[in-house]
């Protein structure tokens, strides 16, 4: 899958008008200088050679060097990736928490007013663009109430260089026991992760509700009910556990949405992650970095579906590979 995307991207990138060299040197660079630069970057070779060369590079986990900056693509990505993972991780937790519990509650109260309200919430929230949600939350909590920061990963008085090791700021601050910095990092995470979490929760509400409805109709639920186990325990323990497996599968598929949401959230909150990197380099037409970023996104999607399969087997002992 990664290979196919890579190939499509490579071909389309090279076939479209506008080349990085003129973008890099400005529109009025003399012909000779442009040619020289092209030669240097290997853009004059036949396309097939360029393509095979690139594939070989990727196999060696080398994404090449940025065409615009003197920097390895892998370095640039390694710098930005933790920020994106931190954001999506907390976004996912919020989504799961909100979505699964609301969905289960709605299924329990099927066809009652609470059910309708939650289903409407699911539809409405799904239709709110992530970036607008982010802007509105910024406006309300950042400007009007003035209680939460609206941009970046740290405040002006906290310097990442004092604790940065892995790039995951929460982990880093805990490692060096700098708890005021940890608080600052956490506060900066609240709005972006809630933005991401709220918007995606709509899908999970719907998924959980549908799965719970199926489960709640199963014989063992009726049996549990007959044995006199408390209703709440049946719904949130017995049923939810069983409904969780298909939800998990869907979660693997939703990672794509999560990534897309992260790109937009990063732009809105000036969050220095992969999405911003991709956009910045698109403006500069920095092919190797654009390709590298997309490969990493594809790798994330692919590896998450692998992880989901593994969790699947752990959660449900009936599944064996």
């Amino acid at each position, binding site marked *: 899958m990664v290979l196919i995307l890579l190939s499509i991207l490579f071909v389309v990138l090279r076939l479209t008008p506008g080349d990085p060299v003129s973008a890099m040197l400005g529109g009025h660079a003399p012909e000779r200088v442009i040619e020289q630069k092209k030669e240097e970057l290997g853009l004059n070779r036949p396309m097939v050679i360029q393509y095979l060369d690139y594939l070989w590079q990727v196999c060696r986990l080398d994404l090449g060097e940025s065409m615009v900056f003197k920097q390895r693509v892998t370095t640039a990505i390694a710098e930005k990736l933790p920020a994106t993972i931190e954001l999506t991780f907390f976004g996912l937790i919020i989504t799961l928490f909100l979505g699964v519990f609301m969905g289960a509650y709605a299924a329990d109260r099927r066809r009652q007013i609470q059910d309708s309200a939650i289903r409407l919430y699911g539809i409405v929230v799904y239709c709110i663009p992530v970036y607008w949600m982010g802007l509105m939350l910024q406006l309300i909590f950042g400007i009007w109430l003035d209680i939460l920061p609206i941009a970046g990963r740290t405040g002006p008085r906290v310097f990442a260089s004092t604790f940065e090791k892995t790039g995951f700021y929460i982990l880093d601050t805990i490692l060096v026991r700098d708890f005021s910095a940890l608080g600052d990092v956490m506060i900066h995470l609240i709005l972006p992760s809630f933005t991401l979490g709220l918007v995606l929760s709509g899908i999970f509400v719907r998924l959980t509700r549908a799965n719970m409805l199926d489960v709640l109709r199963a014989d063992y639920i009726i049996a549990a009910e007959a044995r006199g186990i408390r209703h709440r325990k049946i719904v949130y323990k017995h049923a939810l556990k069983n409904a969780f497996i298909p939800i998990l599968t869907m979660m693997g598929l939703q990672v794509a*949405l999560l990534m897309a949401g992260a790109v937009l959230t990063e732009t809105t909150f000036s969050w220095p992650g992969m999405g911003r990197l991709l956009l910045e380099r698109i403006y500069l037409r920095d092919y190797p970095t654009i390709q590298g970023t*997309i490969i990493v996104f594809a790798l994330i999607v692919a590896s998450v579906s692998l992880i989901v399969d593994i969790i699947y087997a752990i959660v449900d002992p009936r599944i064996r590979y």
Partner: protein
Amino acid sequence: MARGLSPLMRMGKKYGLEWWILLIGAVIILAIIIMAIFPGAFAPFNPHDQNTGPQLLPPGGSHLMGTDNLHRDVWSRIVYGSQTIMRIAILAAILSSFSGISLGLISGFSGGILDRILSLIMDSVYVFPGLILAIAFAAMFGPGVFNITLAVAVIYIPTYFRLVRGQTLSIKEELYVEAARSIGASSFTILWKYIFPNVIATTVVVFTLNVADAIMIEAALTYLGLGLPPSIVDWGMDLAMGKKFLPSGQWWLITFPGAMISILALGFTMLGEGLAEILNPRLLER
């Protein structure tokens, strides 16, 4: 009037919440379509007019939704902006459904190596984050209404392809297809007259939901500054511009364009949801 409403009410009794969802969705879409077709009737100013009054004026008075930093009327820009987003989203959905359906039909019907390759490509595009792909394509195609339509359309082709291919595979085994083949119908006739009509019904719902999604993707692309030249009035671009004035508290510049994107997407989603549940009565039990 009351009599005219009564069939609507009857349907409401029969289908419950789904019917109201469908109805509200349809009304929202209709309202915005009318707005897009007759912008002059709704907008008091030209959307490019930079002499409508003071800059950054809060909503109220002759400026329903205030003015922006270039003295332009926000409400008028929203009215004219509806044209851009509607045109792009619907055209993109038509383009992708057309290519997705025809590729799915051919692939499912012919099978073999072609089917294998197409499925592989479609599956890899399908699992990849749509927006990121659209960003990449929009960046490569460069700005322009048609280019952005294309970028949005590309990411939805696999959705139709997978749906149609799966159905074609099962329909192709039906008895009536075999009967048609035995009386000597050509492959094209079988595809067009026997399989296509059975496939098209399910794609209607997908199409509606697809438009809703395309609206959000289109606005996202223009919000990110990819896609359209500044001479075109667009909600996503207005939102991106309004973002600069957020720290200084000019809330109306982001609130209204964003709300419109949500409402329009909501309209199509509700229509699609309602349609899905009414066309598929088995789901009604839930």
